């Protein structure tokens, strides 16, 4: 069973790499944000998996929980940026002045 979890976690890592592709090469910031968000949810799963591999899930579950709660804040903050400052590629400063 342990091996299975190990391979599962390795597989998750592999999947994470695909998300990482989007995060690194995403044409817009928001694409990156999607990528990072996806990585975040996989990380939560991975943390529990690691806990199981260590046979100490009860210790890792707190981290995963914290992670699930806090990952949200980061994504929210980043997307909040666009609610206040519009425009993806134009100079943000100009849009500020426009108001």
């Amino acid at each position, binding site marked *: 069973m342990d091996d299975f979890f190990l391979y599962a976690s*390795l597989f998750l*890592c592999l999947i994470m790499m695909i998300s990482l592709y989007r995060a690194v090469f995403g044409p817009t910031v928001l694409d*990156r944000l999607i990528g990072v968000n996806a990585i975040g949810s996989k990380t939560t799963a991975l943390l529990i998996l690691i806990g199981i591999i260590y046979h100490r899930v009860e210790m*890792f579950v707190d981290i995963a929980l914290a992670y699930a709660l806090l990952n949200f804040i980061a994504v929210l903050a*980043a997307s909040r940026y666009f609610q206040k400052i519009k425009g993806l590629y134009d100079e943000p400063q100009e849009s500020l002045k426009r108001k």
Partner: protein
Amino acid sequence: MIWQLDIIILSFVVICGIAAITVRDLLGAAILFGAYSFMMCLLWAEMGAVDVAFTEASVGAGVSTVLFVAAVFRTSRRSKD
């Protein structure tokens, strides 16, 4: 320690690190830096440093990315390199 995970995640860390400093958009860099700290968190957890992983998770996800975004919000997103 789980060395298989260790090697893979370390490679991710390096990729994230390089990406974070090469992206020509500070918001993107901040977001990638967030991803970098996710990876770091995983790495600590995998090496058995649960407390460090917890700290990194709370700091990386909760505070430092937000602070970066806040700083970028108050300055500019433009970066020449």
